């Protein structure tokens, strides 16, 4: 309750720059400084947005994008956490995986996309693979770092209570590293949003990214902005959902700023 008015203020201040951009956009369009064929008025985009969101065909495209996003992000979370924990838990895994990660992490994963298409085809699999390849690294690194930094006395307390090494890892080390793990997951989620869109722009027959490219190629500028705004709003929604989950999971941890 005490924070209610505070949150309202924060939301208001946060909305200000967005309102400003839309305002400038409106002025540019309304005064004709930018020709309508290149930059449609925000009102025109908004009208089209509402129309599209009630069109089943458009929603199907959005659903394909979301499916790839969730599948890719989900696999990245599971793989990233599993590998990250293993790196900390086993000296042998750490010694093998760490150099591999150092080599692969800075590679622009989009460069692997042609290879993914050749091996996995044009469908969902290649796009999901690209999302995984990009999103897995921040999650893996945050998990490895977070679990390695866990206070040893927490693990000792668990082992003295009779927890085996594996038990201790799963019931104490991983939960203790959760704040760090979730920070990695949040970065992974943002990257997933970007990469799924990018993959669909490059090669796809459906999805929001495909709609944008198709509209751009036929100079339908209004239709170009609609998927862009859709993915941005989806990202906002996913982030809010993620934060709600995070708050629940981190209920006992000292407060951190988001």
């Amino acid at each position, binding site marked *: 309750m005490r924070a209610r008015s505070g949150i309202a203020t924060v939301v208001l201040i946060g909305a200000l720059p967005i309102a400003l951009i839309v305002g400038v956009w409106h002025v540019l369009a309304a005064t004709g400084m930018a020709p309508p064929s290149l930059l449609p008025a925000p009102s025109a985009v908004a009208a089209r947005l509402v129309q599209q969101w009630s069109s089943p065909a458009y929603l199907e495209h959005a659903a394909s994008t979301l499916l790839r996003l969730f599948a890719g992000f989900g696999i990245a979370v599971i793989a990233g956490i599993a590998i990250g924990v293993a790196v900390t838990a086993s000296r042998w895994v750490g010694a093998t995986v760490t150099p591999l990660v150092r080599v692969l992490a800075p590679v622009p994963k989009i460069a692997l996309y042609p290879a993914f298409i050749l091996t996995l085809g044009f469908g969902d699999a290649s796009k999901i693979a690209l999302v995984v390849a990009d999103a897995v690294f921040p999650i893996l690194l945050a998990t490895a770092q977070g679990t390695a930094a866990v*206070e*040893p*006395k*927490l693990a*000792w*307390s*668990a*082992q*003295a*209570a*009779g*927890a085996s090494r594996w*038990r201790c890892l799963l*019931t*104490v080390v991983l*939960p*203790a590293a*959760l704040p760090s793990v979730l920070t990695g997951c949040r970065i992974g989620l943002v990257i997933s949003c970007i990469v799924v869109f990018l993959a669909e722009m490059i090669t796809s027959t459906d999805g929001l990214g495909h709609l944008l490219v198709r509209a751009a190629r036929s100079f339908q500028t209004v239709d170009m902005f609609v998927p862009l705004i859709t993915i941005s709003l989806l990202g906002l929604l996913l982030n809010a959902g993620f934060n709600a989950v995070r708050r629940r*999971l*981190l*209920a*006992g*941890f*000292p407060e951190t700023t988001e």
Partner: protein
Amino acid sequence: MIAIEAVSKTFETEKRRRLPALCDISLAVAAGEFVSILGPSGCGKSTLLYIVGGFVAPSAGAVTVNGQRVTGPSPDRGPVFQEFALFPWKTVLGNVMYGLQRQGVARQQALARARELIAMVHLAGYENLYPKELSGGMKQRVAIARTLAYRPSILLMDEPFGALDAHTRTRLQNDLLDIWERDRKTVLFVTHSVEEAVFLSDRVVTMTRAPGRLKQIIAIDLPRPRSRAALLLDRRFQDYVVGIERLMDSADSGAPA
């Protein structure tokens, strides 16, 4: 029951420098005995406790408990740390339940035992709070209950009251003695407070500056159950405290403060 035999520990730093922490420590602790280890900070007294706990391996020598060589942690030896080391994502009840669950105690029984322990450390009513919502003294009470839950026969206490204010510290010392009087567990208690060591212990083991060696073992011949108020007026108590403080001073002489 605890036999520490010629234990030494040398830490290797990142630059391959060797830092001796403990040097040739031998000590026998009888079942049911309350022994304090007293020494200047950095003398390796906590390291010695971690070696007995099986959390750290000695560089030389060995520790045996009831004739069994210590190779790792065991529910027979329960640690209590200065930093509490509570699980922040678990409530008071969840923390105390942890050891019972690892011991395979049935849920209903575990719940009953956990509530009983929480009441014993005077925290009834706080079961569903998270550690971050508790004061330092309350956190240490939870940590003690968490360790007592799996019924260790030995308590390894690493400056457990070192982070608490004087008033809370006194209360927890009294409560610890109350709990100890009930079942007389073996306690190895690390501290740098002479008064605390004398008040609690049957024997006080003093150590030298790093690398820590045993300096002198003083048997504390004071009647039990002990009351702090009575002891503070007791000449024998005062003599022990002053005598050990002098001994500690001479341990520090010549070394930089």
